[in-house]
């Protein structure tokens, strides 16, 4: 890495980590999460960047350079459908196979009990030993090729496990190399390291599905609660195992279903184990990037219970000025630039909104510029440029 690039990287790292800690850096950092937008800008199809992750890495590095980002995630498209296809995972529609090559991947929610990846009568099996349940029952059920323990083994089963394990190792190794190139060629900081999921989201997203978990909350609430408690230590361990060993970057926490249920459900089933996980990471010196998809303003009183500085609070659909009023004294705030303005507004609209957010939220530091939600291919290139220009013009302290 050249001396010039190293200096740029260190400046950006200082800017980003200072803001993460709710401090006041030299200016508002640009930490931009962009998914299929990077394909649009680099001239790739959604199929190319989703099925061939090396193209996603190239496209992300191009965006980081062209838009002068301080920090980004090397692959915000986040899944590699090449691996999905080789394992035979059932829950995605894949661009170029199931979808037009220009449409982003889609998640298929289980509709009925028959299509749930964990059955209603399997809670005890999961609670008793989550890892064994995942390996013996859940993963074989999610895969077109794997067979559950107890059924006759097949060649396709063996190959799916082999390709899955090797594929993950290849992806993780290539991701590390791409992050290193992001640093050495562009001077750009990787935004997060590792992943945490809310225990209730795991049950709802990947095990039971939204409809089935909704019924379970009434039919077997004790089982649901016990399952969230059983899986929590595993999710904490998984987050710590994948976290930044230098403890500079936060673990990513993409929150899904908490806003879709009543206050009572959130209080009893969603919040306690999520809080525990975040606190345990914080006790290990790891911050969590709270990326609440939707409007999480109903839960400010709970979120405010978290230790000061333990999270970076990302704003999606809620009013960022309200978020700042309730949580800005304890946590860095990020995001809040509406994606519809990025998609349908003009560069002047974007500049005006960014200026308004910087003036209202960032005056004492502790704010990171980003869109509300991960940027898709509908965003206009000139509007993403305007987000950078506004930050460089109005975000300097």
């Amino acid at each position, binding site marked *: 890495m050249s001396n010039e690039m190293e200096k740029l990287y260190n400046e950006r790292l200082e800017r980003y980590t200072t803001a993460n800690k709710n401090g006041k850096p030299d200016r508002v950092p640009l930490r931009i999460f962009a998914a299929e937008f990077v394909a649009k800008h680099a001239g790739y199809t959604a199929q190319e960047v989703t099925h061939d992750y090396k193209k996603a890495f190239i496209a992300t590095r191009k965006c980081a350079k062209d838009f002068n980002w301080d920090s980004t995630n090397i692959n915000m498209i986040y899944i590699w459908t090449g*691996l*999905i296809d080789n*394992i035979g*995972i059932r829950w995605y529609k894949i661009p170029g196979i199931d979808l037009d090559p220009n449409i982003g991947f889609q998640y298929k929610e289980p509709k009925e009990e028959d299509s749930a990846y964990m059955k209603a009568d399997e809670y005890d099996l999961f609670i*008793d030993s989550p*890892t064994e349940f*995942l390996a013996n029952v859940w993963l074989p059920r*999610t895969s077109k090729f794997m067979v559950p323990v107890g059924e006759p083994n097949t060649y396709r089963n063996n190959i799916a496990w082999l390709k899955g394990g090797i594929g993950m190792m290849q992806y993780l190794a290539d991701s590390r190399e791409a992050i290193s190139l992001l640093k050495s060629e562009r001077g750009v900081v990787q935004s997060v390291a590792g992943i945490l*999921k809310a225990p209730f989201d795991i049950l709802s997203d990947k095990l039971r599905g939204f409809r089935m978990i909704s019924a379970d909350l009434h039919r077997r609430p004790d089982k649901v609660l016990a399952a969230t408690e059983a899986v929590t230590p595993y999710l904490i361990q998984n987050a710590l195992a994948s976290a930044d060993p230098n403890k500079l970057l936060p673990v990513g926490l993409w929150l899904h279903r908490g806003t879709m249920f009543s206050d009572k459900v959130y209080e009893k089933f969603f919040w306690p184990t999520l809080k525990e996980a975040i606190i345990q990471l914080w006790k290990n010196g790891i911050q969590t990037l709270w990326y609440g998809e939707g409007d999480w303003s109903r839960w400010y009183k709970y979120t405010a219970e978290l230790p000061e500085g333990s999270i970076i609070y990302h704003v999606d659909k809620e009013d960022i000025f309200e978020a700042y009023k309730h949580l800005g004294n304890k946590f860095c705030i990020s995001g809040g630039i509406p994606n519809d303005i990025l998609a349908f507004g003009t560069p002047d609209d974007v500049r005006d909104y960014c200026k308004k957010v910087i003036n209202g939220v960032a005056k004492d530091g502790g704010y990171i510029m980003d869109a509300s939600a991960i940027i898709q291919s509908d965003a206009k290139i000139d509007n993403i440029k305007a987000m950078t220009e506004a930050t460089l013009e109005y975000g300097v302290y």
Partner: protein
Amino acid sequence: MKVRPGTLIPWEQRVKEYEKILGDKEIVKKEWESLEVLANRFIWFCLTDL
């Protein structure tokens, strides 16, 4: 909790299965546990990252 977080087949279980270990047991243990971490990561990677 039969299999604790971060493990698949814990060393305490595996070590009972050897008839004998003639050399350095710690070397055998270290390599067993290092692959435990990666294989365990794969199971949970499928749940949290895919």
